[in-house]
């Protein structure tokens, strides 16, 4: 079985802010073990989870009150900059430092750049201000997925699957029957689907209290390699913008270890933001829909992993956004591999 190679020069959602505190948390990202923790001033830090001494996971070590990280195998100690500050075995400090990853913590999300730190560019991140906007409310979390990141990406870029895989919640015939417009802006791939005068799928009927017919818009933006934002508008047919119900879904598609992926999600809305019952209902539905996707993608992963190859996939017009997303990732990977041939990425100290 071949393992997917992952783009590393890009932002991935590494963790939600509320996941990381004054304890050590390990999370594999693009086949790199990462140890997340916070320093005493609450600054979030991420280092490669391998002690430079004998590669023992630092996340099995402990964090002192002053922010010093100690490996609990032979006692290597590292300061907040990842520099080794001493060992118990000798007076001299070993010349050792941890690989630290560029991070951006914003709106309750921690973004990580696992590749060349020199290339980390904050302007590539999507707008996430709605996660902290007082006029919006949201739920978020992360779901484990035993399938390669590309399968999740294609699932999100081709929402026609809602018709067949999610018929009791967010899908109905209108989704598959309505073509998409696809736009490309550099590496970014966008699509929009305008369903006009359709029957409201059950989730939206209940979520918005709407009766059919409704207009349902889906505008998706893929920020390669691993971020997807879906803008949803649902309104009674004939309603003018900005009237209508707006929702946003942020997906962080973060490759983990091997062909496993962290499926980060945040689901937000701009109406009835104090309605706890509605929040609970939407969160349950979101998780139920994601479980249907996880089951499907894990079944699909087995088929891809065991496929002897030699047979071209069939594709149709509704695959266009997913095919372009696939190409965008392939191009990034090719660029990265060319750059790696020109110069090996130094695995030394990185300044954020």
């Amino acid at each position, binding site marked *: 079985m071949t393992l997917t190679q992952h783009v590393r020069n890009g932002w991935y959602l590494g963790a939600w802010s509320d996941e990381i505190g004054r304890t050590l948390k390990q999370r594999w990202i693009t086949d790199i073990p990462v140890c997340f923790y916070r320093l005493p001033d609450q600054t979030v830090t991420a280092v490669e989870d391998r002690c430079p001494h004998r590669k023992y996971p630092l996340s099995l070590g402990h964090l002192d009150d002053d922010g010093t990280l100690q490996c609990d195998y032979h006692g290597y100690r590292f300061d907040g900059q990842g520099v080794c500050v001493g060992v118990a075995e000798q007076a001299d400090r070993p010349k050792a430092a941890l690989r630290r990853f560029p991070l951006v913590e914003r709106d309750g999300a921690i973004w990580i750049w696992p590749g060349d730190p020199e290339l980390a560019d904050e302007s590539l991140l999507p707008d996430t201000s709605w996660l902290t906007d007082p006029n919006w409310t949201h739920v978020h979390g992360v779901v484990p997925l035993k399938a390669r990141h590309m399968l999740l990406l294609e699932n999100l870029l081709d929402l026609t699957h809602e018709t067949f895989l999610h018929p*009791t919640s967010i899908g109905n*015939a209108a989704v598959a029957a309505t073509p998409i417009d696809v736009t490309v802006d550099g590496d970014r791939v966008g699509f929009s689907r*305008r369903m*006009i*005068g359709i029957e409201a799928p059950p*989730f939206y009927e209940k979520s918005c209290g709407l009766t059919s017919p409704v207009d349902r818009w889906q505008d998706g933006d893929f920020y390669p390699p691993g971020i997807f934002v879906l803008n949803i508008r649902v309104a009674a047919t004939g309603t003018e913008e900005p009237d209508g119900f707006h929702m946003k879904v942020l997906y962080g598609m973060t490759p983990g270890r091997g062909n496993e992926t962290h499926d980060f999600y945040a689901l937000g809305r701009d109406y009835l933001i104090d309605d706890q019952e509605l929040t609970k209902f939407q969160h*349950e*539905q979101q998780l139920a829909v994601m479980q249907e996707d996880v089951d499907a993608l894990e079944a699909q992963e087995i088929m891809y992993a065991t496929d002897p190859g030699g047979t071209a996939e069939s594709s149709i017009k509704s695959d*266009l956004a997913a095919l372009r997303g696939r*190409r965008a990732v392939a191009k990034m990977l090719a660029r990265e591999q060319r750059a790696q041939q020109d110069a090996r990425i130094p695995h030394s100290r990185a300044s954020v």
Partner: protein
Amino acid sequence: MTSPSATAPDTRPLGSAAAGTPSGTRRGTEFEGTVTVLARQAVADDVVSLELAASSGEPLPVWQPGAHIDVVLPTGATRQYSLCGPVGDTAHWRVAVLREPDGRGGSQWIHDHVEEGGELRVRGPRNNFPLRPATRYLFVGGGIGITPLLPMIAEADAAMAEWSLLYGGRTRSSMAFLPELEGHGERVAVRPQDEHGLLDLAGFLGDPDPSTLVYCCGPAGLIDAVEAHCADWPTGALNIERFAAAAVRQPADDTAEQPIEVELRASGTTVTVPPGLSVLKAVEQAGVPVLSSCEEGICGSCETSVLEGEVDHRDSLLTEDERAANDTMLICVSRARGGRLVLDL
């Protein structure tokens, strides 16, 4: 009132989906297998209706008005036919096939070879033409385009919606299913062209009305006329199904198509590609292996590096930047502007 629904009524009580539990058995939405022709009946000039049942005796999947099935011909090609029997009948499917001498041979084969007791390979059903809820419907059918409208009419009628049908054709004898429609009385206007001339679309459709949906199926000329008439109607009011999917990007004028010379540099050969033949097919005929799949300019399997010449891009996949770079092309649909290309094949 019960709205006609374009989705299967497979809804559990909302909110009962427990997080983390896989959903139960999924609806089997697609059938692929062999069906037996229980009955073949001439229902109009050059139109036969076929009544089909699963050869295995199993029930067929449920479907909704507007759905079609693929009939897989012995050549492997598929043809789509709308289901036009009763929606609730999972024991039988009915399709109606017009013999089209100018077609690609699918309907001819069915007319010439399919007999009662015979078998067909089918896939489906699928629905690209779902009936959406409304309080009033206007149906416009032309010729064999009546087929998807029959179950829609039944559904609208059952839902107590207001509806009427304008049914056109060449001659009365060419129009299928007239006896079935007779029972609806004034709601159905049968207007064969040899008796009434062109259809009075303006009189039938009237002015835009927010509570009305228009459903139209028929030959291209009729659909174009209905589209023109409904141009000012609210978005989504008009729903059409054409018999054949429009091509991804067609050259504006096929007659202006010129033969092109394509040099396959790595193979050391040059092929001439006449109008009507794709570069892909010409390359294959020259014995040069090349990957391909969709042959519609979507999937990218046949993407080929261009060494010289200006590409006339006709695919759907490449971005504007990729087109402008002029260094790659999808040879299943794209051609050359200057009459010559050099490919890395």
